[in-house]
C-alpha cells in the first residue's frame, strides 16, 4: 500500500555564490529529476515558495513580522508531494536531490492520516476493549 510523504526543501540563499553556468546546470538537473519522478507516478506535484513572507505569533496573532529571514538554513524553499511505498523509498528519492551538493537539506515527512492523537486514543480504546 502506498503512503504519502512530503519532501521539504530547506535552506535559502545556498545558490548565492553559484555562477550563472552552475545555476543553469543545477536548474536543468532539478527539472529532470522532478520530471522523472512525475513520470514514474511517484511525485504528485510540488511548488516553490517565495523567500519572504510574514510570521504571525503571539496571543491573538499580535506579532506579525517579516520572515523568515532572506537567508536561512531552516527556511523552506519548496516542497514535493510523493506517493511511495514507504519511508525508505521516500528517503531514497530525497537522496537524489541535486541541491544536496550545495548545502540544501531535504526533510522527509510522512503525511499523517487523520489526527494522530485521535488515532492513538482510538487504538488505546480498542486495546481496552480487547482486554
Amino acid at each position, binding site marked *: 500500500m502506498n503512503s504519502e510523504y512530503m519532501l521539504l526543501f530547506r535552506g535559502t540563499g545556498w545558490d548565492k*555564490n553559484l555562477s550563472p*553556468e552552475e545555476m543553469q546546470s*543545477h*536548474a536543468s538537473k532539478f527539472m529532470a529529476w522532478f520530471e522523472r519522478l512525475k*513520470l514514474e507516478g511517484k511525485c504528485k506535484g510540488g511548488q516553490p515558495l517565495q523567500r519572504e513572507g510574514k510570521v504571525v505569533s503571539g496571543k491573538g496573532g499580535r506579532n506579525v513580522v517579516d520572515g523568515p529571514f532572506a537567508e536561512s538554513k531552516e527556511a523552506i524553499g519548496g516542497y514535493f508531494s510523493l506517493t511511495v511505498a514507504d519511508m525508505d523509498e521516500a528517503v531514497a528519492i530525497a537522496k537524489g536531490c541535486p541541491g544536496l551538493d550545495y548545502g540544501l537539506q531535504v526533510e522527509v515527512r510522512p503525511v499523517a492520516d487523520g489526527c494522530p492523537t485521535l488515532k492513538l486514543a482510538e487504538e488505546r480504546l480498542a486495546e481496552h476493549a480487547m482486554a
Partner: protein
Amino acid sequence: MSDLAASSANPPPAGEVSRLAEHLFRHEAGKLVSILTGIFGTDRLQLAEDVVQESLARALQTWPFYGVPKNPAAWLMQTARNLAIDVIRREKSFHEKEPEIITTIEQWSTDTDAGSQPLFDSEIKDGRLRLMFACCHPQLPHEAQTALALKTLCGFSPAEIAKAFLTSEAAIAKRLVRARQRIQELKIPFEIPAGENLEERLEVVLHTLYLLFNEGYKASAGENLLREDLCFEAIRLATLLVEHPAGNQPRTHALLALMMLNGARFGARQDSAGNLLRLKDQDRAHWNREMIARGLFHLDQAAVGDEATKFHLEAGISACHCAAENYEATDWRQILALYDALIAVDNTPVVALNRAVAVAKVRGPAAGLKAVDAIANADMLDSYYLLYAIRAEFEMELGRFSAAANNLRRAMQLTPIKSEVTLLAAKLHECESAEGQIDRGHSQ
C-alpha cells in the same frame, strides 16, 4: 513576480524536459549587466551585477517546478526589470532621477509570452560595446580589464575566472573590487568613444580581447574546458565589435581572423586521452573548416588599407598552417617571412622563440639554435618550458641526445600541464635510449 510565475505555470508535458540553450544563463547575464549598467550608471556596476545574479536565482527557484518558460531570455529580462524598479524605488541615491529611470525601464516590453524582443537587438549590442569600452579603459590595469570583462560581459564567476587564469579566487575578487572602484573614481562614462579618442580606446579593447584569447589558448589542456571557453568568449566579443561601425576596422577583422584561425584547430589539439598534440601530429580532419573559412573571410576584410598590425601578421601565420594539407606541406618560407615582419613590430621573446622554429624549418636545426641564442631579453623565457622543449627538439635533430635530454628534463620541471609532461617524458625516453645506443656503439 507573481505575474511571471503565473505566466509560466503550465508545466511542460510529462517526460519532456525542456532543454536550455548551452551557456544561456551565462550569456544572458552578460547582456543584462550591460543593459542595467546603462540604466544605473557605470559607478553602480556592482548593483547591476547583483540584480542580474538575483534574476538568475529566481529562475533557479521556479523553473525546476514550473518548467522552462517559452522565452527564457525574455523571462530573465522581465525579472531583472522588475528587480531594477524595486532597487530604484528603494535606493535614495536614485531619487532625483527616479521617474526618468523608471520610464526608461517601463518602456521595455512586458510581453514575455509573445516571444517578442523586449529591446532592440541593436540597443543591446550598443550596451555591450559601451560596457566593453568601460571595462577596457586605458586607466585600468590590464589584468583588471580582462577579469572585469569576463565577469560583467561574459557572466563568469570569480571562481571560474580564477580557474581559467590559474590563480586564486581571492586574487580575482580583489582585482574586480579595485576595478569597479577605479571606474567610480575616474567616472568612466558608459559610451562608445568617437573621433580621435576612438582609435586609442579601440586599441586597448583589442589588446584586452587578444590577452583574453591567449590566456585561454596558450597552455590549455583537456583538464580545463573553461580555458577554451575564454577563447570563444573573446571571439564573441570581437564579433560584436566588428558588427558595429565603431569597431569595424581592418585591425579588428585581423584580430578576429587570428582568433578564428587558431580556434578552428582546437578540436585537434588533443588525443582521446586528453594529451596535447603537436601541430605535426594533429589529425587535420578535425580542424573546423567552417571556422577556418570565417577566419579567412575576416583576414580578407582586414586586408583593406595599409596597416599591417601584429594581428594581421599573426593571422597570416595561422592561415599558412590552416592552408597546408599536411604538416609536410607547410609553407615555412612564407611563415618565416611573416615572423620576420612580426618581430619588427613586436619583438618579444615569445615571438622570437616561435620565429626560431620557422628558422629551423627553413635553414636547419643549427640555424634554429642560433636564432634561439640570439633572442633579445631571453632571460624572460628562463622559466618558460617551451624554450627548453624547442631547444631539445633542435638538439635531437642534430643527434646531440645528451644535450637534448638535459633540456627535456628542465622543460618537464617547468610545465604545470600533465599531458605536456607525458609528451616530454616520451621524448626523453627516446633520447635516453638513443644515447644508450651511442654509448654501446662506443664501447664496442
